[in-house]
C-alpha cells in the first residue's frame, strides 16, 4: 500500500443549469495527486479543466453546481463541507493562482497588503508581522526590492510581476497544493519562462504539489510529472508526462500532439489539425464523445454506442498507470508510434 494521496477526486460531476439546457461541464472525472507531485490537466477551452479545479475548492461560479462525486482532501470530503471548513482550506492548505494577473489583484490595495491579507485570514498575528511575512514571500519568489515594492499598487507592476504577486498570495500560507489555472496564458513568452522557473523553484523548495491547468503543452512538458487529458468534460487519457507525450494512446491526445509544431521533425511536415469542432456540452455525442472527430472510430459499434471507461480501461501492459479511455487504445498507440 502506497502513501494515501493528498487529493483524491472521485467521479466528479459538475453541471451548469442554463436556459438552453443542462451543461455538463465535468462529467465524471477521477484523479489523485500525491504530495509533491505536479499533475497537469490539459485540454482545449471548454473541456472542463477550470471547472474541475474550481470544484475542488468549492468555488464553482453560478449557476453551476457539483452534482456528484467526492473531493477527498487529506482523506476528508470537501464536497458538502461547511463554508467555514472550506474557507479554512482555501488559501491556507490549497492556494490558487489565477489566469489573468491584470485583473486578479484589487486595484485599491497595495500588493503587500493583499499578500498580508491572505496571511491574516488564516493566522493570528499583527498586521506588521503579516507584512513582514509578505515581504519575505515576495523576496523568496524573486521580486526585487520587495520591501519597497510591497507598498506599490498593482497598476505599478508589469504583467509578469503581478503574476508573481499572485503566486506570492497563493504561497503565503505554505499550502500543500497549489492550483495554477493557466498561470502563463495571459503573459508574453519571455515572462512565461520566468514564471515557469519561479513555479519550478517553489516546487523544489516547498515540496508543494501542483495542479496545473493549461492548454500549453510546452508548459506541461517543462513542469508536469503526471498528465491528464480532458475532452468534453471527461478525462480521456492519464499517465506520466513522459509516457503520454511519447506514447499517446487516445486519438485526441495523438491529434493534440500532432497539431503542434515540433523541433525534431522535418521542416516540410505540415501540422495536422483535429478536424471538426468540440461538441456541445448540452448534447454530447453518444458513446465516446470524441468519435465524430476521431480517425480511428468505428461506428456504430462500439464507438457511437458505448462510452469507453478510463478507470476500467484495459491495463496497458508496459505501464499500469497509463490509461486511455478508448476502445482501440492499443491500435492508436501502435499507429502513433509509427506515425511520429
Amino acid at each position, binding site marked *: 500500500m502506497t502513501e494515501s494521496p493528498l487529493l483524491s477526486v472521485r467521479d466528479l460531476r459538475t453541471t451548469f443549469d442554463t436556459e438552453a439546457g443542462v451543461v455538463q461541464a465535468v462529467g465524471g472525472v477521477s484523479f489523485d495527486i500525491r504530495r509533491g507531485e505536479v499533475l497537469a490537466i490539459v485540454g482545449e477551452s471548454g473541456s472542463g479543466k477550470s471547472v474541475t479545479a474550481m470544484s475542488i*475548492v468549492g*468555488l464553482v*461560479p*453560478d449557476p453551476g453546481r457539483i452534482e456528484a462525486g467526492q473531493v477527498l482532501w487529506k482523506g476528508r470530503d470537501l464536497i458538502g463541507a461547511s463554508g467555514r471548513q472550506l*474557507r*479554512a*482550506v*482555501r*488559501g*491556507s492548505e490549497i*492556494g*490558487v493562482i*489565477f489566469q*489573468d494577473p491584470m*485583473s*486578479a*489583484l*484589487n*486595484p*485599491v*490595495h*497595495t500588493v503587500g497588503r493583499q499578500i498580508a*491579507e*491572505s496571511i491574516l*485570514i*488564516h493566522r493570528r498575528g499583527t498586521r506588521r508581522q503579516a507584512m513582514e511575512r509578505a515581504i519575505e514571500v515576495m523576496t523568496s519568489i524573486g521580486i526585487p526590492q520587495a520591501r*519597497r515594492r510591497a*507598498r*506599490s*499598487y498593482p*497598476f*505599478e507592476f508589469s504583467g509578469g510581476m503581478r503574476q508573481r504577486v*499572485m503566486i506570492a*498570495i*497563493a504561497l503565503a500560507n505554505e499550502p500543500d497544493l497549489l492550483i495554477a489555472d493557466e498561470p502563463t496564458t495571459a503573459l508574453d513568452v519571455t515572462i512565461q519562462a520566468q514564471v515557469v522557473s519561479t513555479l519550478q523553484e517553489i516546487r523544489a523548495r516547498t515540496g508543494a504539489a501542483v495542479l496545473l491547468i493549461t492548454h500549453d503543452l510546452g508548459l506541461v512538458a517543462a513542469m508536469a510529472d503526471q498528465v491528464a487529458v480532458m475532452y468534453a468534460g471527461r478525462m480521456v487519457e492519464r499517465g506520466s508526462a513522459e509516457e503520454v507525450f511519447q506514447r499517446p494512446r487516445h486519438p485526441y491526445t495523438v491529434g493534440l500532439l500532432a497539431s503542434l509544431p515540433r523541433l525534431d521533425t522535418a521542416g516540410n511536415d505540415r501540422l495536422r489539425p483535429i478536424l471538426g469542432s468540440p461538441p456541445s456540452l448540452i448534447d454530447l455525442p453518444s458513446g465516446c464523445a470524441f468519435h465524430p472527430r476521431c480517425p480511428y472510430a468505428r461506428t456504430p459499434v462500439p464507438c457511437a454506442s458505448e462510452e469507453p471507461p478510463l478507470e476500467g480501461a484495459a491495463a496497458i501492459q508496459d505501464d499500469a498507470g497509463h490509461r486511455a479511455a478508448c476502445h482501440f487504445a492499443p491500435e492508436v498507440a501502435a499507429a502513433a508510434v509509427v506515425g511520429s
Partner: protein
Amino acid sequence: MPGGTDMAGTERTGGPGRQQSGPRHGQAAVAFGRAVRTPSGVIGVSFLVVAIGAALMADTIAPGDPFASSGPALRPPSADHLMGTDNFGRDIAQAVLYGMRTSMTIVFWVVAMSFVIGVAVGMVSGYLGGWVDDLLSRLTEVFQSIPLFFLALLVVGFFGSGVDNLILLLGFTSWELLARVVRAETLSLRERAYMEAARSSGASTVRILLRHVLPNVAPTAVVVMALVGSRVILIEAALSFIGLGDPNQISLGYLVSSAQPFLRVAWWMSIFPGLAIVVAVLALNLTGDVINDALDPRRSSSGRRGRRRRSAAGTEAVPDLAASTQAQPEPRNP
C-alpha cells in the same frame, strides 16, 4: 509638513521614512486638483469651506444667544450688524451663522446614517444576490416611493419637531438612492477576478465586503452623499419655513419665513438667510460634481464632453448616477 506640499487635496501622512504617496494618490490628487480649478470647482469648494466654517465657528464669531435682541429693530446692514437686524432687533448675521450650524449638523448626521444604511444594504444586496437581493431591492423601492416631505410632515406632527427627530427621520429615509447605486457597483465588482481571488484565499463574505467592495464603492458613495446632503438642507429649510422646525434652534428656513411680513421694509431679513441656503446647497452639489469629475477619467481628460454632460440643475450634476434612479420632485421653498 515633511511630506511635501505638491499633493493638493490628499493628506496622506505616513510614518517617518515612508515614501511620498504613491502615484495612485498622486494621480487622484492631480485629477482632483484639475477638477477643483474649474469654475464650479472653485465655487463649490469655497462655498463648502464657508458653510462648514460658519457651522463650526458660529459661537466663536458671534457669541451669545441668537434669539436675544442685540440692538434696534429692522436696521439695514451696517458695520455693527453686517446683515442688519430683524423685527426684534436680533442680529441677522448671527442668526444665519447659527442657522447654518443647525443645517450642517442635520446634514452631517443624516448623511452619516444613510451612508451606513445605504452602503450596507447596497453591498449585501448586490453581493449576495438571490432572494436577499430581491428582498432588499423591494425594500429600497418602498422607501423610494415614500414622499419624503409629507412623511416628514406626519412625523413632525406626531412626534414633535426636535432636531433629533428630524435627523432620525431623514437618516432612515435618505439611503435609497445610495443603496441602489452601491448595489449596481457591487454587482459589477462581484464578477471581477480579484473577488474570485479573494474567495479562493479563504476570505469570508464579510471580509470581502469590507476589504474589497467597500473601498471600491466608497468614492461613488461620497458623490451620492453630497447630493443627498443638499436635498436634506432643502427639506429641513422647507419644514422650518412652514413652522415645523425645531423651535429651540435657529434655522435658515425659519429665518426666511419670519422675514415674510417685512419683505417690503427689510429686504435683508430674507435675502441673507436665503443666500445662505443657496450657498449650502450649491456647496454640496458642486463639490459632489467636482469629486465625480476627479473620479471619472473621461470627464477630466476631455473638457468638451464634460461640459456637455454637466447640466445646470444641481441635483442632475451626476448624470451617470442619476440614471439609476427616477427623477425625484425636489421639495422647494414655498
